[in-house]
């Protein structure tokens, strides 16, 4: 009889911090302690608190252990599993809860990180074993497919999705129900239709789709079958990037298990409905996340976008009507079918319903995945859930939407986040990457970083994107090197709008957003680079000078030893009270690596 379960995160984050070895160690120790009959090990998907990995949760009490090493395992087994004593030193400290009786306040659900969250798309991630279809079924899995096939007409399914107000979670926010309805009705005599899943998650900093595929792959399969029934398709494709090996292998297992149970394949639930899903691995080109490029790539051709219309709902994959939805969008569907459109529409704001998963990254304490109702403010996400900014630094901006999005400054921290509000303040939802920046980040440098990304990833088919982004990047580089002029700023802005209006696909049309939004909110930083030849955040190397304060320098020479360019030498000045002559930096030789500043124990070196 199983009385306790040890859940070990097998997501990509925790796997890379060693969760496989920990699982092995638990196996051995549980065997040694003779608890194999009582304690069960379960490998799950991502819990969301990637910064604290590897993560282990022990149920029924739900004790949350973070940063576990293989050396800790014997102690956890002998103390917690055998004697029932929580290993306090490994428990995540920020529980935000009062201690009640002898019920340990160490449960994951008590932490500030989880309390404000509302998990719909991520509901099974970190709860079930993604490689076991039975566990998914135990959590009401495939009930929605059963309901749809036996009790609902395709029109009723589309109606529920439409009424729920679900919008595409890939970024653009197109109403999902409308997309399905178009694919069902626009080409009435189509002999073949397709259902595609966009799992080509490419925004720097976004990893929610990966986590859903790794933690709850069956939810996506079930939703795609429901979509197939709704639009009249019996073939699905999941386009997933090859850089996600764990997601790929779990999808393969899930598809095979669903086949064995007859939940994919011919005559599902004896209703005569056939549906099958194939995987297609992408080679990692960012442009293949764009819908027309993605379908071109599935067809086996070079992944390049094409003009729309015709829209995929009319002429998509292999020229047939096709719907393409994002992983997170699909993950919401089974819940909407089971709990109803009203339940889903009760969450969120007027025009953005439900919840959204954000991948928190950058200068934030709790790097990880969070799912909150639409309309939650950025402040709540950053300060409450994310735990604020480490090292007492000040919040400067949050970047949403990756290379297509923009920066949100502190003045907009209290804006409720939804699709329309983000666009109004010059950013966009994107797939939900949220990168937090503090006073040490240079906004010109950030814009340059994203431009470097789009220049690399531009497919080259249309000139505005291929040449335009390259020219933009050159102007930005010029500014970060202190060679920019005020005229460059105006020219840059003009070029941004030109690219936006003329590029062929979403990649080019949104590529200037990082520049435009930083220009809008942080123009003073651009001006500081151009007029004062200074980088206020101290990031742009060409504008930095390192200096040694000769009154503070004791002449120990630590800095000179660290300097890779031999740019530091002795002076003939000895400060009062010091025994050795002070050092100085030759600005001609200095490569601005900062090694001297890190080495100085007397805070005598500064940069400006």
């Amino acid at each position: 009889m199983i009385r306790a379960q040890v859940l070990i995160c097998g997501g990509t984050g925790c796997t890379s911090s060693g969760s496989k070895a920990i699982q092995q160690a638990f196996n051995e120790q549980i065997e040694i302690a003779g608890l194999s009959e009582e304690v069960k090990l379960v490998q799950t998907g991502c819990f969301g608190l990637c910064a604290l990995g590897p993560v282990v949760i022990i149920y029924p009490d739900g004790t949350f252990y973070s940063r576990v090493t293989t050396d800790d395992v014997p102690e956890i087994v002998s103390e917690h599993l055998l004697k029932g004593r929580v290993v306090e030193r490994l428990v995540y400290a920020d529980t935000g809860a009062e201690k009640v009786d002898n019920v340990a306040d160490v449960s994951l659900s008590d932490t500030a990180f989880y309390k404000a969250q509302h998990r719909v798309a991520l509901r099974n991630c970190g709860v079930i074993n993604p490689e076991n279809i039975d566990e998914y079924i135990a959590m009401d899995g495939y009930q929605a497919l059963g309901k749809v096939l036996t009790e609902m007409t395709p029109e009723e399914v589309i109606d529920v999705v439409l009424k729920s107000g679900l919008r595409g979670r890939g970024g653009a926010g197109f109403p999902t129900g409308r997309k399905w309805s178009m694919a069902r009705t626009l080409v009435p005599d189509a002999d073949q239709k397709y259902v595609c899943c966009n799992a080509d998650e490419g925004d720097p900093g976004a990893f929610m789709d990966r986590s859903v595929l790794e933690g709850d792959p069956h939810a996506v399969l079930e939703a795609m079958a429901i979509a197939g029934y709704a639009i009249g398709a019996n073939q699905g494709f999941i386009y997933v990037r090859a850089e996600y090996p764990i997601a790929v292998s779990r999808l393969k297992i899930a598809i095979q298990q669903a086949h064995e149970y007859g939940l994919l394949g011919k005559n599902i639930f004896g209703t005569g409905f056939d549906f099958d899903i194939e995987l297609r691995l992408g080679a990692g080109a960012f442009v293949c996340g764009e819908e027309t490029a993605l379908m071109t790539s599935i067809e086996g051709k070079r992944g390049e976008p094409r003009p729309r219309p015709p829209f995929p709902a009319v002429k998509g994959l292999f020229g047939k009507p096709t719907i393409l939805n994002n992983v997170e969008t699909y993950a919401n569907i089974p819940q909407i079918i089971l709990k109803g459109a009203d339940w889903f529409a009760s969450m969120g704001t007027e025009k953005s319903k439900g919840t959204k998963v954000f991948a928190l990254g950058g200068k934030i304490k709790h790097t990880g995945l969070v799912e909150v109702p639409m309309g939650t403010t950025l402040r709540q996400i950053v300060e409450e859930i994310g735990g604020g900014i480490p090292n007492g630094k000040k919040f400067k901006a949050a970047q949403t939407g990756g290379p297509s999005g923009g920066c949100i400054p502190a003045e907009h921290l209290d804006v409720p986040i939804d699709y329309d509000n983000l666009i109004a303040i010059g950013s966009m939802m994107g797939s939900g990457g949220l990168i937090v920046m503090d006073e040490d980040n240079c906004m010109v440098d950030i814009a340059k970083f994203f431009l470097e990304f789009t220049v690399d990833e531009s497919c080259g088919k249309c000139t505005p994107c291929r040449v335009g982004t390259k020219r933009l990047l050159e102007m930005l580089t010029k500014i970060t090197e202190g060679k920019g002029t005020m005229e460059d700023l105006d020219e840059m802005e003009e070029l941004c709008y030109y690219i936006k209006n003329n590029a062929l696909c979403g990649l080019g049309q949104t590529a200037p957003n990082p520049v435009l939004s930083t220009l809008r909110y942080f123009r003073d930083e651009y001006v500081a680079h151009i007029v004062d030849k200074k980088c206020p955040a101290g990031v742009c190397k060409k504008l930095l000078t390192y200096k040694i304060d000769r009154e503070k320098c004791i002449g120990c020479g630590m800095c000179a030893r660290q300097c890779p360019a031999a740019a530091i030498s002795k002076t003939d000045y000895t400060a009062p009270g010091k025994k050795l002559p002070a050092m100085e930096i030759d600005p001609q030789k200095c490569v601005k690596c900062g090694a001297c500043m890190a080495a100085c124990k007397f805070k005598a070196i500064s940069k400006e």
Partner: protein
Amino acid sequence: MKSLAELAAIREKMKDRVVLREGQGDIRVVVGMATCGIAAGARPVLSAFVEGVANAGLSDKVTVTQTGCIGICQYEPVVEVFESGKEKVTYVKMTADKAKEVIEKHLKGGSPVAEYTIGQNQ
């Protein structure tokens, strides 16, 4: 799989396995499992509760868990029952047979078995 009934059957069969992870039931049965408790025979008591609760179909309502030394070693094995809104009940010198009785009368029936509580055994 040919029918929804089969799906429902798998769901029922698997439910016990995941219900453990769905958060906590209304009632918590905590078995003292420090060295003294184990030496006094807490392990069969714990097993009796785990199995008994599952067999009685109470898995949704009752969470069986363990704790360390409760501090009254001479009364081990000690079992405490927490129920929201009610006073904690402490059972002492438990055995597997007594556990079955507690499941039947207290967890299922709602009235504590007075003769096994600490008040009656001092």
